Structures are given as C-alpha cells and as structure tokens.
C-alpha cells in the first residue's frame, strides 16, 4: 500500500485513541476534584491532568493557573492546543478523508458523524457539568465505535495492522504518561500506604485507563499501589497495560513482516521492549526506580514510532 496511506491510517488511530484518553483523564479528574479537600490533599489535580496529557508547558504559556474551567476547555475544545479533543477529531477526520479508499464505510461513518456532531452540538463547548459529561461520553463512544468497526469490518491486511500499530503505540504512551505523573503516589513508602488520599488517587488512575473493575477481578484485593502499577505495567490481560500493548505491537509488526517477506529494525526494537516487560517484576522495577523505568519506556516507545515511520511510512 501507499506509504502515505499507511501513515494516515496509523495517525488516524492515534488521534482517536488520544481523544478517548483525554476524555477519560478529564472524567477521572472531575471525580477526584469533586471530593472534599481533605481527601485529595494539596495537589492541583487539574495541573496533573495537563501533565498526563503532555500539554502543561504549552498551557502555561497562555494561562496563569490551572482550574477546572480552563483545563477542561484547553483539553477539550481549545483550537490552540494541537492535541485537544476537538483537534484530535478534526485531525482524525482529515486523515480519514485522505485515506477514504482504505477505510470501511463504517469507520468513515463513525469519524464523519463525530465530526458533524462536534460542529453541530459542541461548537461552543460545554456550559454545565451535565453537558460536559455528555460530551465526554460522546468522545468515548466515538472511540469505541471506531475501534469496533475497524475490528469488525477491516480486511486483515497491512491497512489493518498499521492502524493497530497507531492505536497500541498511542495507548502505551498514554498509560505510561499517567504512570509518569502519578508514580509518586504508587511508591510503597510508609507514609502513603492506606491513607484515604491515596485510595482516591489510585482509583482515579485506574479509572482513567478504564481498569478499576478489572483491578478487582484480577487481584481480588483492596487497592494497593504496587498492584496498581503491576496491573498497568506488566499484566498482559489488561488491554491498556504496557505489556498488552507490546504483545499487540510485536504481533502486528510480525504480521507485516510476514506479509512483506522481510523483518526490520521496527520488529527488533518492539521485540526488545516486549522481552524487557516480560522478564520484569514489580519488585525489580521498584528497586531500580519506577520513575526511571517509566521514563525509559516512554523514550523507547516513541523511538519505536520513529523507527516505524522510517521503515514504512515515508
């Protein structure tokens, strides 16, 4: 297939996944900030929402302080924020138009309808909490519909695999970012363990990657920070864990390699990351520093994006 088509499919999936992640981040932050101050401590949750979205720096260039109003607007609707939900959907639609011939009609319909709704219903943002909740649901449902229609209607060929690469690379990045910002509340240090403050922080992390219920099914325990970290990093059964993303990335890259009859640096790099995840346990990770581990992962993950681009997309 055309390199540009593959590139568009890859970015299309990334934008949709990012939009959903932003919606989840806002949703989770709203829940934490709705708690009485005693439960959330002194941290500014809207500030960490910006950090997990990776846009804190650009935000503070035009804003003094982060609060619900301006962060929700910045993450959801701002035209100035290149990765606001609105811009993600706009970019997704633009990418979809460029690769219409490679999309199934169901996928196109999902993105195009979302774009139409964005303009018709959400062009002025949201004014009430209720509206905002509706908007966030709309974004998450769009992502579910897109993902579902890709899964159910696309031919299993390189178009599908490139789209999945985008999805899993973005997802791994998102999960890693939330861990990067919140790693300190996951540290098994005396003073943190068991406080009400941390309980809500942990559940908020889980919620932002839709893993709160999963946690209980996997561990059948009350929330423990190292188990939260274990779930998000190493547990291959959780679709948003780093391990699961890399299972998928290596598989999709292998499928491409087989179809094209040759392997390359992307396959090797992805396999390397997956092996590292497979042979790690939380003890070692905490020993060597969870923060360092995550930061290294983020760098490795974005390196994979560069390698894929070089090998296939340009």
């Amino acid at each position, binding site marked *: 297939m055309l390199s540009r088509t593959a590139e568009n499919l890859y970015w299309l999936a990334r934008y949709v996944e990012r939009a959903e992640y932003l919606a989840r981040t806002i949703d989770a932050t709203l829940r934490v900030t709705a708690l009485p101050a005693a439960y959330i401590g002194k941290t500014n949750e809207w500030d960490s929402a910006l950090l997990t979205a990776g846009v804190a720096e650009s935000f503070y260039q035009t804003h003094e302080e982060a609060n619900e109003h301006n962060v929700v607007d910045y993450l959801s609707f701002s035209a100035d924020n290149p990765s606001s939900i609105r811009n993600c959907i706009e970019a997704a639609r633009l990418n979809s138009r460029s690769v*219409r011939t490679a999309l199934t009609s169901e996928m196109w319909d999902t993105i195009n309808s979302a774009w139409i709704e964005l303009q018709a219903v959400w062009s002025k943002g949201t004014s009430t909490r209720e509206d905002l909740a509706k908007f966030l649901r709309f974004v998450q449902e769009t992502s579910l519909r897109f993902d579902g229609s890709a899964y159910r209607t696309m031919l299993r060929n390189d178009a599908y695999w490139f789209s999945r690469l985008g999805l899993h690379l973005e997802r791994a990045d998102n999960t890693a970012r939330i861990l990067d910002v919140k790693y300190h509340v996951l540290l098994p240090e005396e003073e943190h363990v068991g406080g009400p403050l941390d309980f809500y922080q942990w559940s908020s992390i889980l919620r932002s990657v839709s893993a709160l219920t999963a946690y209980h099914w996997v561990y059948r325990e009350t929330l423990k920070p190292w188990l939260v970290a274990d779930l998000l990093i190493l547990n291959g059964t959780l679709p948003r864990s780093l391990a699961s993303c890399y299972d998928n990335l290596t598989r999709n890259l292998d499928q491409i390699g087989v179809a094209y009859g040759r392997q390359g640096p992307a396959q090797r790099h992805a396999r390397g990351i997956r092996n590292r995840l497979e042979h790690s346990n939380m003890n070692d990770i905490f020993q060597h520093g969870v923060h360092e581990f995550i930061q290294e992962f983020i760098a490795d993950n974005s390196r994979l994006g560069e390698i894929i681009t070089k090998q296939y997309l340009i």
Partner: protein
Amino acid sequence: MAVAFDEMNIPGGDLRPAYQELARWLKETPPEALEYRRQEAELLFRRIGITFAVYGDTESTERLIPFDVIPRIMSGKEWTLLEKGLKQRVRALNMFLRDIYHGRDILRAGIVPDDLIFQNPVFRPEMNGQQVPHDVYVHIAGIDIIRVDAEDFIVLEDNARTPSGVSYMLENREIMMRLFPDLFARHRVAPVERYPDELLSALCSVAPNGASGEPTVALLTPGVYNSAYYEHSFLADKLGIELVEGRDLIVKNNEVFMRTTEGVKRVDVIYRRVDDDFLDPLTFRPDSALGVPGLMSAYAAGNITLANAVGTGIADDKAIYSYMPEIVKFYLGEEPILKNVQTWRCREPKDLAYVLDHLGDLVVKEVHGSGGYGMLIGPAATKATIEAFREKLKREPEGFIAQPTLALSTCPTCTASGLAPRHVDLRPFVLTGSKSTTIVPGGLTRVALKEGSLVVNSSQGGGTKDTWILDE
C-alpha cells in the same frame, strides 16, 4: 429572451411522453412526502461526505451541492441522437489536438488563426511532436449540453482538461434508488453504474507499450483541500486504484514510481486531476508542491500515460470553441450533429462593436475562465456593472467572447413554494480508450435553483438532479 423550452410540458397542456409516468406519480405523492425524502437525501449526502469546497469561502469550507429529488428525464430516442453527436465531437477534439501538436493542417488550411493557438497560454509547446499513446488526448471529456427546443442539443462548453462531476452522476442515482424504489419500478431507466468499469478499461487500454500486461493505474489528486477531492477518492475507490498525491510519486530513470510500504512500485497510467500548470515543477510552475518533479520527462520518454494528456486546454478554450463546427467538418467531413451557441469573438473588431452595442442582452465570458466566475450576464446586470465590464472589454477584447442569453430548458424542481420549472444543463461524460469511445446513458444535470437564474454552476448556488435516460 425567448420562452424557455419546458422539458415536461407541451404548451397547451399536454405532457411530453417521457414525463407522463413521473407526472402521474407526482400527483399521487403528497408534497410532505417529497419534502421528507428531500431531507433524507441531504442527510445521506452529509453522512457519506459528498461535499465540495468553495474557494475563498471562509464560513464553511465544505458544502453540499443541493440535490433536487425530481429526476430529469430524456427519451431513449433523444439520447441516441445526443450520444452520436457527443462521439462525433470528442473524435474531432482528439484529432484537433493531435494535429495542433504535430502537422497543423488546420492552421495551414486557414480555418483556425495561428495566433489563437500560439499566443494562447494553454497551448503547451512541450507537447510539440510528442507522441501520446494511441493518439488519445482527451480520455475523459465532459461536454456541457443545453436545450432550447425539442429538436436540438447545443454544446455550451467542451471540458477537455479535468472535467469533474461524474461522482454526482453516480451518487445521485444511488441515492434516488434508495429513496424512490417505487418510482424506479414504474420506469425503465438505463443504468449508469458501469461507468467506473468503463473508465478503468479505457485507462488500461492506453497504457504505454513498455507496461506489463496488467498496467498499474493511479489517480493523482491535488489533495484533501481540492474542491473535487471527494470525487477523486470516490473514483479511486470504485476503480480499485491508488489515490496518489504528488509526494507519493517519484521519477527514476524516466519511469514513474509510487512509494509504498514495500518499497517503490512502477505506475503506468495516471488519471490526473491536477492541472497542467502544477504537474511538474521542473517544466511548469516551479512553485507547485502538488506535482511530481521529472514527470514530464518520463512522459516524453513514453513511459507513462497521462489522462487527459498535457495541453488539451487548447481544445476546450472558449476562443477555440467558436470554431468547433468548422473543426468537426475539417477532420471528419461531416456536418456537426451538435450545435454551437452563436458566439461573437471580441478579438474581431466587427464582433466587438456588436458586443459593445448589445452588452445588456448578451452573456460575456472570459476566454480562460471557468466555473461561472468572471462573466457578465447582461440582462441580469446593473447599469454600473455593465459599464465597468465595458471598460474591461475594451482594454482586453481578445480575452472575451459573447453569446446571446439563452433560455436554457426547464425541468420541474422542488422549491420552497412547491414544484416549479427551473433551468438546467447536462454534462455527459465521454470516455475514449485505444479502441472505442463510450458514454454511459445519462450525465450530470445541473439546475439553477433560484427562480429565473441561468447559472447552474455549483460554485454559484446551482444544484444537481439525477438524469434518467428511458430504455424504450
């Protein structure tokens, strides 16, 4: 202006045969049902994303072309005549182009003046002596046809460069069949759906000699911001060919390749929807980011077929248009089946004098304009506009032609106050391959939705209709 030819009603109260069943159906169908269908159609267009962009319009960058649900109907007999005339016209266009870029018999015979060719910016000296595969220049032609009476078809304009609109012909039919299955059941409408197949086989048939048995065809688009982008992606999809942009193509050793995830792949035929000027920055506009550096040298080496060929603009130029009847006679020795609109060439002093005296009655068009931009419609213009135009005309008479304001035929159309006649034209699409010329029965009917308006261009508020050719 004469009374417009009504395609449905015969003066005196009778209906033309092709419209009898439609009229019966309209009588049985309550207006609300029609309105409901109209809204449904609009929703479908929006969801499928059948939009176009209007340049210079900042309000909304993508718009729908209004779709009128009342079909425009022609009898099989009328179509047979029209089809014959279109094939004749396109054959002559191709022969004219071949001649202009080779022997120039027609200039030597004094039929078309030299300076009209050589001083024309759309004449491409690069094409002099260049062999194009199978001598086909215009593979896809869109000939704009109007009617002023029951007998004649008149060519308003030849489009021999990159005519658009065929996706609307196909989508309009799809949507009509979805919305009005009962109406179709009561008619025998000739299908249009084989157009993509015929286009693909025409394109494959003109592949260069060096191409493999199964030539690789690609559609070259300027990209998503082009006003006809939807059509480009639609056609690529229907033809099952790659939709490429300039940056997807590279030229190596005078061969054209596309960049794929598996390395580069040779391309044999390019159905290009990029204008000549932007095709190759090394030959034409150096600032073009839409083109492919080196494409013209691959073309000159005979390793790639461009459809349509480079330089076809010289055949559909409005100044050349007025010579078309002579051109048909010169190459084919036949009387032209399709008529021309009477045209005054402002470059000729006698004609200019007449035009200046009758500005209020005439339509004056820029020779190189298109899309309905930059023209004067005398009867509809204010005094001030006419005077301003007069100055423009005097300054650069060779840039203009003038025609009488024609009463384009009318068809019943949905309006805010119920069904009413509105002016229409028709653009059938003529495909020329190495062996045959084909036309699917129908075309794109454009309709001027505003009462009394004669401007059917989509960029100027025109709409479209499904066009039915009855299979009798």
